[in-house]
C-alpha cells in the first residue's frame, strides 16, 4: 500500500496501520531524535493532526503513539479495545461513541449493543491510570460504573451523554470510590433515577470537584450535603443542579461558589418568597465569572430579571428549559451583549427572534427547539421571518438548529446571504414533506442556496418537500460537507447517487424514509471506507443489495436490523461502517452482519 493511496483514504483516528508499511525510508527523512520529537508532538491535541502526523513515517508514527494521551473513537465498533491499547500505550483519556445517532429518536432497538463493559475490562489492564472517560450513546450498566469506580484509582472525569442502561446506583459507586473525582457530567441520558442519595456518597474528603452536572436527574438530593460539597470544592467551576433545587437553595449555593463559570439553576420561580428577590439579584451580580447559564425552569417575568446583573459577560445562554415569551426574552437579551450561543424554545416566537437580531450582534450559534414537537396543527412557534430577523442582526452566525412548521426558499436564501459563514445548518420543518408555503414549490432551492453560498458548510440537515435536485446541489457544491442528515426526501436513486458522487469530505450520512434503493447504495461502493458510517432506514434497500455491498467491501460491516413486520427480502434498517475489528461479536439476534 503506497503512501498516496493511504492519504486519500482520510484515515480515522485509530487505524491498525502496520508501521512497517508506512514508509520504507525513515532516517534521512526524519533527523529528529525521539527526545525532541515526542515533546513537540505532545503539544498537538487535534485528532486529525495526530492522524496526519502518524502517517509521515515510521519514526513519527511511533513518536505519535507514545505521546498521545487522549484517544477519540467515533464508532466503538470500528476498532477493538485490544487494537487501541496495542497501539497507544499511554492513554489517560478516552472518548467513545456508540450507537448510530438515530438511536436518539428511537429508531434503534434496545439491546443493540455498544456496551462499554468490554472496553472497560481491557482498558483497566492497559491503562490503570486512566483519568477521563467520555461516553456518548453507549450502553452503560451500573456494573460498568462500579467497575470503573473500583479499577481506576486515578479516575477524575466522567461524562455521559445519551447513554442508557444505568441508574443512580451506578452514580453512587462513582461518588463513593473515585477519590480524585474532578468531573461528573451527567447530561441527558436514559438513566433510572432511583433517588438523590448518590450525592451524599461523596466523601467529606473530596475537594477536587470542578464540574458537577446533575441537571437531568429528577430526584431530590440532600441539600445540606450539596451545600457542603460546594463549599469544600474551591475549584468548582461548573455547577448544574436539577429542578428540585429552589431559589433559596440556589442563592446559598451561589454564595458559596462565586467563582463559577457555568451555572445551571434549578426551578426559577417560587410561590412563597422567603427572601426578597433583590438579594438573589445581588448574588448574581457578585458572580463575576459566569459565562454560561442554563436551567431556569418555569421562570417568568417576575424572576428572570434576577439574572440580569450577570448577563453582560455571558457567552452562552441555554433557555431550552424555560418557555419564555417574546417580550421576556427581549427584556433579557438587552443585557446580553456578549452572547455567542443561544438556545431557546420556540415559545419566544418570531418577535423573540427579532430581539435576538437586535441585541446580540456577536451571536454565533442559535438553536430553537419546539416546545410542543408533536403538535401538528395550530401551533405558533417560529417561522421564516424569525429566522431572517436573526440573520440580519447576527452576521457571525455559523451554527443554526431551527425547528419550525413553515419555511420559504426565499427566506433561507436571504439568511445564508446575510450569514455566509455557516458551518452547521440544521433546519427541521416539522411537518413532513412540507413545501415552500408561499410558492408551494419544493424546498430544493433553499438548500441549494445554502450549499452554494456557504463554502465552509460541514454539517447539513435537510427537511421539507425535497426532490433529487436538492441532492444534486449538495453533491455539486458542498465540498466541505462532513455530516448529512436526510429524512423523507428525494424522488429516486439519483438523489443518493448525487451525494455519494460528490461531497468528497463526507463522513457521516444518515438517511431515513427516502426512495433510495440498491443501485444508489452500490454507487457509493468505494466511498464508504472513507466515511465513518452510513445509516439507511425505511428506504428501498433489499437484502440482496446489501449482500452485494458486503461481498465487495470486506472491510465494511454491513449490518441489517430485522424488523418483525418487514418482509424477509427488505432491508429495513441498514447500518454500514468501516472497521478494522471485523464483524461484531456481540451482535444481538436481530442484527445480521452480512
Amino acid at each position: 500500500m503506497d503512501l498516496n493511496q493511504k492519504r486519500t483514504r482520510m484515515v480515522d483516528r485509530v487505524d491498525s496501520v502496520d508501521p512497517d508499511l508506512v514508509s520504507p525510508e525513515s532516517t534521512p527523512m526524519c533527523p529528529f531524535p525521539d527526545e525532541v520529537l515526542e515533546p513537540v508532538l505532545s503539544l498537538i491535541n487535534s485528532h486529525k493532526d495526530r492522524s496526519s502526523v502518524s502517517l509521515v513515517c515510521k519514526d513519527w508514527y511511533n513518536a505519535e503513539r507514545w505521546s498521545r494521551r487522549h484517544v477519540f473513537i467515533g464508532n466503538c465498533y470500528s476498532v477493538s479495545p485490544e487494537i487501541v491499547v496495542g497501539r497507544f500505550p499511554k492513554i489517560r483519556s478516552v472518548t467513545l461513541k456508540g450507537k448510530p445517532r438515530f438511536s436518539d429518536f428511537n429508531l434503534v432497538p434496545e439491546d443493540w449493543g455498544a456496551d462499554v463493559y468490554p472496553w472497560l475490562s481491557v482498558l483497566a489492564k492497559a491503562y490503570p491510570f486512566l483519568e477521563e472517560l467520555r461516553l456518548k450513546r453507549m450502553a452503560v450498566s451500573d456494573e460498568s460504573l462500579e467497575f470503573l469506580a473500583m479499577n481506576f484509582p486515578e479516575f477524575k472525569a466522567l461524562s455521559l451523554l445519551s447513554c442508557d442502561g444505568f441508574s443512580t446506583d451506578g452514580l453512587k459507586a462513582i461518588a463513593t470510590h473515585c477519590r480524585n473525582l474532578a468531573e461528573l457530567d451527567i447530561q441527558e441520558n436514559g438513566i433510572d433515577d432511583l433517588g438523590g442519595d448518590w450525592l451524599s456518597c461523596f466523601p467529606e474528603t473530596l475537594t477536587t470537584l470542578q464540574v458537577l452536572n446533575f441537571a437531568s436527574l429528577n430526584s431530590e438530593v440532600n441539600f445540606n450535603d450539596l451545600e457542603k460539597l460546594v463549599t469544600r470544592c474551591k475549584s468548582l467551576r461548573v455547577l448544574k443542579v436539577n429542578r428540585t433545587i429552589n431559589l433559596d437553595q440556589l442563592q446559598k449555593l451561589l454564595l458559596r461558589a462565586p467563582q463559577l463559570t457555568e451555572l445551571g439553576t434549578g426551578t426559577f420561580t417560587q410561590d412563597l418568597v422567603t427572601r426578597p428577590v433583590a438579594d438573589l439579584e445581588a448574588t448574581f451580580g457578585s458572580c463575576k465569572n459566569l459565562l454560561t447559564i442554563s436551567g431556569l425552569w418555569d421562570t417568568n417575568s417576575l424572576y428572570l430579571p434576577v439574572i440580569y446583573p450577570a448577563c453582560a459577560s455571558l457567552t452562552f445562554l441555554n433557555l431550552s428549559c424555560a418557555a419564555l415569551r417574546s417580550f421576556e426574552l427581549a427584556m433579557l437579551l438587552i443585557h446580553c451583549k456578549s452572547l455567542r450561543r443561544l438556545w431557546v424554545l420556540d415559545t419566544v416566537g418570531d418577535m423573540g427572534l427579532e430581539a435576538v437580531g437586535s441585541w446580540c450582534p456577536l451571536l454565533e450559534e442559535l438553536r430553537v427547539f419546539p416546545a410542543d414537537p408533536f403538535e401538528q396543527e395550530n401551533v405558533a412557534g417560529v417561522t421564516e421571518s424569525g429566522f431572517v430577523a436573526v440573520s440580519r442582526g447576527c452576521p457571525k452566525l455559523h451554527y443554526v438548529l431551527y425547528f419550525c412548521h413553515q419555511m420559504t426558499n426565499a427566506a433561507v436564501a436571504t439568511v445564508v446571504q446575510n450569514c455566509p459563514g455557516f458551518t452547521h445548518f440544521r433546519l427541521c420543518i416539522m411537518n413532513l414533506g412540507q413545501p415552500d408555503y408561499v410558492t408551494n414549490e419544493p424546498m430544493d432551492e433553499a438548500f441549494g442556496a445554502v450549499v452554494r453560498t456557504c463554502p465552509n458548510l460541514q454539517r447539513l440537515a435537510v427537511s421539507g418537500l425535497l426532490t433529487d435536485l436538492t441532492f444534486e446541489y449538495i453533491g455539486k457544491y458542498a465540498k466541505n460537507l462532513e455530516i448529512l442528515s436526510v429524512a423523507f426526501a428525494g424522488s429516486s436513486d439519483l438523489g443518493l447517487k448525487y451525494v455519494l458522487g460528490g461531497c468528497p469530505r463526507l463522513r457521516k450520512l444518515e438517511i431515513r424514509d427516502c426512495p433510495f434503493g440498491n443501485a444508489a447504495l452500490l454507487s457509493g461502493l468505494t466511498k464508504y471506507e472513507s466515511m465513518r458510517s452510513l445509516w439507511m432506514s425505511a428506504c428501498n434497500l433489499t437484502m440482496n443489495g446489501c449482500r452485494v455491498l458486503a461481498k465487495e467491501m470486506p472491510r465494511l460491516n454491513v449490518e441489517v436490523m430485522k424488523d418483525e413486520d418487514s418482509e424477509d427480502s427488505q432491508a429495513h434498517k441498514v447500518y454500514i461502517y468501516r472497521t478494522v475489528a471485523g464483524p461484531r461479536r456481540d451482535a444481538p439476534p436481530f442484527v445480521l452482519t452480512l
Partner: protein
Amino acid sequence: MSVPLEHDYIGLSDASSLERSTESSNINVFTLKATELSLGLPGFGKNSEENAKFGPVVKNYMSGAKRGFSDVNFNGSGPSGKWALNGGSEADLCRGVNCVFEKNQTSSSDVKPVEEEKKGPVKAQVVGWPPIRSFRKNTMATNLPKSGDVAEANLGSGECLYVKVSMDGAPYLRKIDLKIYRNYAELSTALEKMFSCFTLGQCTSNGIKGRDGLTESKLKDLLHGSECVLTYEDKDGDWMLVGDVPWEMFIDSCKRLRITKGSEAIGLAPRSTAKCKNRN
C-alpha cells in the same frame, strides 16, 4: 340520502349526531352537541402566541389516544393495533377525522377546518419525528406547564397516580396520571384534549399562570358555564366538585374522576369563588 356521516371516537359532527348515535349501535361515539363544543379556543383564529401555546382541544394527540381505539374504526381501515404510529391505518383514521372536521363547517368558533384545508390532511405521528432526543422530550414534558399529554413519559418523582376518568355517555373510560400535572389548569387542558367537551379552554387562553386560587375559580366559573361538571371521588367515597381544595390536597385524595352532565350535577357545591381567592 347523504353518505353516512363519519364519526371518529369523539363523534364530532353536526348537532344531529345525538339522534344518529343513539340509533347506530356499531359506531362508538360520544353524544355531544357540536354547537356547545369548542374545538378550538376562542380567539384562536388570531396567530397570537398566547392562544396557540395552549393549543386547540383536539390536536394530533388524538393519534396518541387512538391506541385504545384502533379496533374501533370508521373508515373501513383495518385496526392497526399498533401503538407506534407508523402511518398506515393510523393515517387513515386521521383522515377520517379530518373529514369530520371539514363537514363541520357550521361550528362558528371552530377555526380548525379552515386551517386543515390549508395544510392538508392531518398527519399521523411518525416514530422518531420530529427528531427531538427522547431524553429532551421527557425533560420538556415535565417542564412545560402546557403539556398535559398522557402519552409523554411520566418522570416526576417516580410514583404514578393513575386514576380513572369517566364521562357520562362515553362508551369507555380513560386513565390519567395525576402526577404529571401541576395545577388544575393543566388537568383541565388534558381532559379537554381527551374528551373535548369542555370549554375550559377559556381559562388558559388568557395566559393565566400561577396561583391555583385564580385558576380554580375560573375553572369553576366555566364548569358551570358549560354543561359539563368535573367531579371526583375522594378517599371517603364521596363525590366532590373539582377545584375547591389546593392542588396538592386534591391529588392526595382523588381516587377517580367523573365528568358529569350539568343536569346531573345539580346538588353539588355551588361556586365559591370568594373562598378560592381568599385561600393562600
